[in-house]
Structures are given as structure tokens and as C-alpha cells.
């Protein structure tokens, strides 16, 4: 008998135009101790499926039909009280956003012990000891501090560990993880996935992992089900599906994942190489003394600190986001900037675009220091240097039509003299990124994420800049849309002879797109090298750490799982 068996599951939501079916009769099976990944792009219905299993769909405007059997017992239609018995002890769940799934106004210890005291009738002291034991089990070193902490006082990775501890404390037979690592850094993601795998192996807990990331699928799962628009288009053993996808949609998705055999080979070498061989890489090359003719932008000893706190009376404390750093961006290149979150990548990019003023150092473009520019001179600089933001939803004004926003950008930069000319240029820019004039009168929320990111690129290109800074432009996008945006960037560079500074955390993307790579840690660039040299042994430890966190696909059946996991 399977641990979990889903048959003909259908889910309907009440929409404006009557009931809308979002899950169309899917079937899934999960054996005891097995790891099943449900993978799909946004809107494919994977999270709705998880919610339906646990009876967590909104009761008022949704209906689930079919059969969800857990240990042979039908869960659909079970009364709330009986479901509560299943949740926690039978099935545990981990949500994507650990900040919103932990109660912000209670300490971690209180939230963890509540369930123990309620369900297992433990007294306060033994409940606390049990909670501490589980925190220790999920790799939290500072157990007593974490027990006393409020959720916001912990990092994202720590919170996710707490969530996992809470979910497995009741020793469930099945753990459902809904995008457990999507909000996390690659290096933290790897740690959390390793933890989930340990729990699966050592406690025998079956895992149902919901993800959009084929790296996670490949790393963690025994079997995979691919969902699209509420239908399971393909399922089978992970290694078979990735090596030889049967459905064209799966094939297209797998192909859209940027990957390189190089990374996998390098990882094997890293695993084989003794740790002592990890000499810190060559020191940062001194700023090139040649004249600026071949560079679009030269940053020298640029730094920025922010003042935290301090109100009417106080001064607050200084925090350095970027420490004195040098960087030359050569004309015509795509320079990749990588580093863990909090390493100062975004601040450095904003300094280069003069969106943030430096606390010290100089930024030269065409031999002129731009850090003090104002008025028309600053406008001329902005015409040459444009910025594409990570969150295409947030970087467009939600209350204004995109045509007005594009036209405003052009008139403010004095690129277009009249409203008419601005509109024509806006149309041209939209057409270049594959959108049409008909889109001018729409509001941002009427577009998909991929379309919005293309609008963001169109806005940057409309002023015909020579240098474009892209701050994680594809991080929020599905893989297939990411592939489109990356192709668009390559095309634009070839056509318009642009220079790009591309910030990212996906090393495979960086490697396939960029000519050179700069690596940041704690506010400075620790090394810069040609993209082809990413895998050399002399790389800085930070770069090696980022490299080890990559989750490559096992595309060919012959590839050994151990090597991918190393």
C-alpha cells in the first residue's frame, strides 16, 4: 500500500465568471520513505495540490473532488478535527516563506513547545528539552539563543531550519515541502536540501517536494511529477525523466535550464582535491592604470556606508555596505557580478548607476568623475548608463500606464523633445523586446512577470544607452521565461553593441552569458577573472563556496548521483 495515493483530484475555485477548474484530475503515488518532487512553473497548480492534500484550501470558494488517501484513509471530506490529527503527526508541512508562517509575536521556543504540550501532554521543562533536541537535530548550534529569539531576529536559513524542526518534531511519516528553498541563497539552499535529505534517510520520512527548480528535483528526489496548467504531464524516476523526457513540455523545461558540464566536472575535482590545496586566490589585481578609453566605467576605491537607526535626536550607527573597491567595466563586455546575499552586489550596482551616492572614491566615465555630477551633466550620464531592476513588478509604477512611464523616462532624459516623439520611441523600444504598441495603455498588473521584465529592459533601452546594469533580472522568473530574457540580452548586445553589468546568483547563467566575472564578499570584490576560468583551482574560497552550491542536473543516465551531490 502506498503512503499517499492521489486519484482523479480536481480542484475548482469560484472566479468572477463561475467556477474555474485549476486541477484537472491528477494522480500521484508516494511510497513510505520515498522522495517525490512535483515540479512546474508558476500557475501550474503544484501548491494548490499540496494545499488540497492537507485540507488547507479556502473552504468558502473552492472545492476538491476525487480521492486523497493517506495510509489508506480518505482525507478529502474529513472533518476539521480529524484532519488536525493527521496534520503534524501524520503529515508535516514546510512553507516557502518562513517569516510569514512563523507567528511574529511569539518566541521560537513558545511556538515549538506549544504543539508538544498540547498533543503529547509534556510538561514545560521536558517540552523545552525536546524542542532543543530537535533544533540541535536540524543543525542549529546556538539552541538556547534561538529558543528565546523572535522569528525576525533569525536569518532566512535559520528560520527555515526552525520550520523543518517544527514539522518533523511530531515524527510525521510524510513531509510536504512547498518551495522550501526558493527564498534562500544558493549556499543556504544546499544546506537546507542536505538537511531534508538527512531527515529522509535517517528518520525514514517520505518527502513531497514542490519546486520550480530542476536543480532541486535532481538533487533530492527519487521520482518526479511534472505539472502544467493543472495536469501532470509526465511522471517517473527522476533520472529517467531528466535524461530522456517523454513529454515535449518537460523536454523544453529541462533544456531551458542553463547548465554546464564544466561545473559538474569542476565540482568533482573540488570534491577530490584536498582542502589544504585551497590557497586563497591571487590578490585582486591593482586598478588598471591604462587610460579609460576602453572602459565604459571605472570605479576606484568606491565605498558606501549607511546609517541605521537614529531619528530626530540620534545619529544612528554606520554600516558599510561597500568597502573601498575597484572595478573596470570594459566596453562591449558582459561582466557578471556574483556573491552571497548581503555581499554588497546591489549597492555596488547602484553606486555605478549613481542611484546611490558614494561615501568615498571616484567613478569615471569617459575620463570624467561622475560622482559630483548634477543637473544636465547628470542627465547626460543617465542617458548613457541605464538600470534594469530585479523585481519587474515593483520597478513599474502600479498606478500608471506603461506607455506613460516609458514616455516619461524619455522626456525626462531629454531624449525625446515632444510627447509624440516620446511615444514613437517607446513603441520602438517595446517592439524591440517583442511587445507591441497596443500594450502602451495597459497597467503593469495586466502583464505576466516575463512581459514586465521585458518592459523594464525596454525602458532601459529606450534612451539608447551604451551601458546597462542588470540587477538579478531573471531571479524572479520561471526557467523558460528566463531563457527568453537571456536570449534577448544576447541579441541586444549583438545588435546594439551594448555593455552589460549582470548581477546574478545562478552560476550556470553567469557562465553561459558573461565574458568576465567579479566576485564580491562583505562589501568588496575579492577577485575578477575571465568566465572561462571559473573552474580553475586557484579560485578564491568564496568563489569555490558558490560553485559548490550549484545543483546541476543529472541529464544523462550514466552520471553518478554521488558526484552531483559532492
Amino acid at each position, binding site marked *: 500500500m502506498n503512503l499517499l495515493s492521489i486519484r482523479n483530484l480536481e480542484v475548482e475555485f469560484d472566479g468572477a465568471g463561475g467556477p474555474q477548474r485549476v486541477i484537472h484530475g491528477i494522480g500521484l503515488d508516494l511510497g513510505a520513505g520515498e522522495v517525490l518532487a512535483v515540479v512546474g512553473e508558476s500557475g501550474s497548480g503544484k501548491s494548490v495540490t499540496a494545499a488540497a492534500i492537507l485540507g488547507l484550501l479556502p473552504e468558502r470558494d473552492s472545492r476538491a473532488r476525487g480521492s486523497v488517501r493517506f495510509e489508506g484513509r480518505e482525507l478529502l471530506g474529513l472533518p476539521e478535527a480529524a484532519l488536525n490529527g493527521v496534520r503534524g503527526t501524520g503529515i508535516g508541512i514546510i512553507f516557502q516563506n518562513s517569516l510569514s508562517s512563523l507567528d511574529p509575536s511569539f518566541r521560537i521556543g513558545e511556538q515549538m513547545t506549544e504543539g508538544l504540550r498540547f498533543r503529547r501532554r509534556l510538561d514545560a521543562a521536558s517540552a523545552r528539552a525536546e524542542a532543543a533536541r530537535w533544533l540541535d537535530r536540524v543543525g542549529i548550534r546556538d539552541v538556547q539563543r534561538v529558543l528565546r529569539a523572535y522569528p525576525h531576529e533569525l536569518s532566512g536559513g535559520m528560520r527555515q531550519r526552525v520550520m523543518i524542526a517544527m514539522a518533523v518534531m511530531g515524527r510525521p511519516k510524510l513531509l510536504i515541502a512547498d518551495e522550501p528553498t526558493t527564498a534562500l541563497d544558493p549556499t543556504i539552499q544546499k544546506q537546507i536540501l542536505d538537511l531534508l535529505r538527512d531527515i529522509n534517510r535517517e528518520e525514514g520520512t517520505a518527502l513531497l517536494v514542490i519546486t520550480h527548480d530542476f536543480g532541486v528535483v535532481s538533487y533530492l528526489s527519487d521520482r518526479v511529477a511534472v505539472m502544467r496548467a493543472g495536469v501532470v504531464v509526465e511522471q517517473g524516476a527522476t533520472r529517467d525523466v531528466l535524461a530522456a523526457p517523454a513529454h515535449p513540455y518537460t523536454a*523544453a523545461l529541462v*533544456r*531551458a535550464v542553463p547548465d554546464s558540464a564544466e561545473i559538474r566536472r569542476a565540482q568533482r575535482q573540488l570534491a577530490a582535491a584536498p582542502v589544504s590545496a585551497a590557497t586563497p586566490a591571487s590578490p585582486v589585481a591593482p586598478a588598471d592604470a591604462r587610460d579609460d578609453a576602453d572602459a565604459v566605467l571605472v570605479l576606484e576605491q568606491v565605498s558606501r556606508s549607511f546609517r541605521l537607526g537614529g531619528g*530626530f535626536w540620534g545619529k544612528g550607527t554606520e554600516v558599510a555596505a561597500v568597502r573601498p573597491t575597484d572595478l573596470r567595466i570594459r566596453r562591449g563586455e558582459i561582466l557578471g557580478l556574483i556573491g552571497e546575499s548581503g555581499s554588497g552586489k546591489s549597492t555596488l550596482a547602484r553606486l555605478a548607476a549613481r542611484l546611490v551616492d558614494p561615501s568615498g572614491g571616484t567613478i569615471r566615465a569617459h575620463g570624467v568623475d561622475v560622482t559630483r555630477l548634477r543637473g544636465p551633466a547628470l542627465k547626460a550620464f543617465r542617458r548613457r548608463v541605464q538600470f534594469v531592476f530585479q523585481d519587474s513588478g515593483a520597478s513599474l509604477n*502600479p498606478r*500608471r500606464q506603461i506607455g506613460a512611464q516609458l514616455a516619461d*523616462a524619455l522626456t*525626462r*532624459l531629454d531624449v525625446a523633445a515632444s510627447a509624440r516623439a516620446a511615444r514613437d520611441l517607446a513603441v520602438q523600444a517595446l517592439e524591440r523586446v517583442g511587445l507591441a504598441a497596443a500594450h502602451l*495603455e495597459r497597467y503593469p498588473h495586466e502583464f505576466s512577470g516575463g512581459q514586465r521584465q521585458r518592459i523594464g529592459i525596454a525602458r532601459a533601452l529606450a534612451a539608447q544607452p551604451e551601458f546597462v546594469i542588470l540587477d538579478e533580472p531573471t531571479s524572479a522568473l520561471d526557467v523558460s521565461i528566463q531563457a527568453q530574457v537571456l536570449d534577448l540580452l544576447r541579441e541586444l548586445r549583438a545588435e546594439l553593441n551594448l555593455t552589460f553589468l549582470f548581477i546574478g546568483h545562478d552560476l550556470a547563467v553567469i557562465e553561459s552569458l558573461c565574458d568576465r566575472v567579479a566576485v564580491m564578499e562583505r562589501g568588496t570584490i575579492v577577485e575578477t577573472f575571465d568566465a572561462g576560468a571559473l573552474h580553475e583551482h586557484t579560485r578564491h574560497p568564496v568563489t569555490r563556496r558558490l560553485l559548490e552550491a550549484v545543483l546541476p542536473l543529472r541529464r544523462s543516465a550514466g552520471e553518478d548521483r554521488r558526484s552531483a551531490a559532492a
Partner: protein
Amino acid sequence: MNHAVTTTVAADDNDNDNDGQHAFRSAARGRWHRLRANRLALLGLVVIVLALAVSAAAPWLAPHDPNVAEPQLRLAPPGAPGYWLGLDAQGRDIFSRLLWGGRRALLASIPPVVAAVLLSLALGLLAGYHRGRWPALIMRVIDILFAFPMVLLAIGLATALGPGIWAVALTIVFSATPYLTRVVYAGVRAERDKEYVEAARACGATTADVLLREILPNVATAAVVYGTTLAGGMIVFQAGLSFLGLGTQPPDADWGRMVAEGAQVLVLGAAHVATAPALVIVALALAFNWLGNGLRDVLDPRG
């Protein structure tokens, strides 16, 4: 990386390719439909428009001179021939006084609330967008206004300017502005650090551009909605000030004054004198609340 993906996977990327103009019009139509679907909000709107129209047309609609008394008909109850709402203690037609009183009551409360909305948008944008001491100073002055007893301010203003519509109107501006400014300020603080503001600056937007063209459209809705809700309370407050004798002076009509005059004859059993204006005040206050609540749901382009 494969180009085939573009066509196979992303078909749904182009699914809303109909005419943009059409989408915009249907959005506006959608908002009107939602307002109509909200019965209470629609009722509120009808009551407000009716009150404004009838008050504005008082000279033509009022059957009698509001200040001319018919002493022999003093305190005649509703239904007296030619005086369907009855007469007050001096023998003046209550219906005519309601119409004329509406002019003063609405004039002394609605324009000041509009002024307060505009003032709070200006203050909130300036204080919310900039950092440092001056914004903090603006907000501390707002805090002081919160704590200041407004009736005391009204008495002060009435002493300085003489009792009347100006003293009341200014008091209402000072009463409504702190609440509205807090709302706008909070909105600006939330919008200020969003990426679209940064994106506008990357495209050369000046501070004025950012404030008026980017942030204002995102905070104006909240101010309008809250201002509408607040208008109901301010009508009651205005009536209260008139009741205290700080507003319209005898013999002119004003709802608050009419309640005050009616209260004096309540003991004589003539409840209708105070009841009619009191009901009108309550109805309008409710109407503004309902409309405000309805607007909140309607004015979001995303909803």
C-alpha cells in the same frame, strides 16, 4: 539553452493581446460596476448628491423665507397645511430652514475637508519623502495638533475672527489635517523606497517628478477615501460647533443651530424641531461613511 522554448513553453505569455485601449475602458467600467454592486456606497452617493443639490437650490425650492416667523403657528407639528415639517418655536418653517441651513452646514464642512486633503497631501509628501529634521518637525507639529482640544481652538478662532463660518471652517481644516497627513505620510514612507521610484530617478526624474507623477498617484486614493469617510464626522463636528454657538449666528439657519434651538423646546413636548435637523445630520454622516468604504474597494486598479 534552446530557442525552441520561446515558442513551446511561453504561449501563455501572449494570451492577453487584445486592444489596450479597450482594456483601459473596461477597467473604468469595471470600477463603476463594482460601485453599483456595493449598494450601501451607492445609497451614500445618492444621499450626498441629493443633499448638495437641494441645498444649492434652496432659494428656489424653499417654500418660505427661512427667517420670517408666523407667531400664531409657533411649534405647529409636521403636517400643518403649507408647512409639512412643521414650524419652530418662533413660527419659522422648518423645511425651508433645513434647506437654507444645509447651504451653511455643507459649506462650512465640505470645502474645509477638501482643503485638508490637499494640505495633507502636500505635507505628507514633503515630510514622508525627505529625511532629516524638517520632516520630523512637521510630524511633531501634527502630533501637537492631535493632542490639542479642537473646541478650544474653535473658541479661540471665534474670538479672533468673530463667530461664523470662517472660524468653523478653519477649525475643521485643523481637525481633519492631522489624521489625513498621518495617512499620506505612512503611504509615502511605504512607497518612497520602492523600486519604481528608483527606476524613475534612473531615468532622470527630479524630486518634483517623483513626488507628483510617481508617488502622488499611489497615495492620493488613500487620502480621498479617508477624506470621504472623515467628511461624515466633520459634518457632525460642524453641527456641534454651531450648536455651541460658535458658528452661524441667529437668526440664520444652520443644522447645528436648529438642533440647539429645538433642544430648548424639547421639554415643551415639541420634539420635531430638533429631530428633523438631527436626522439629516446623521443621514449625511452615514452616507459619507458608506461612500468612503465603497471607494476603498473601487479605486484600486489592480482589484
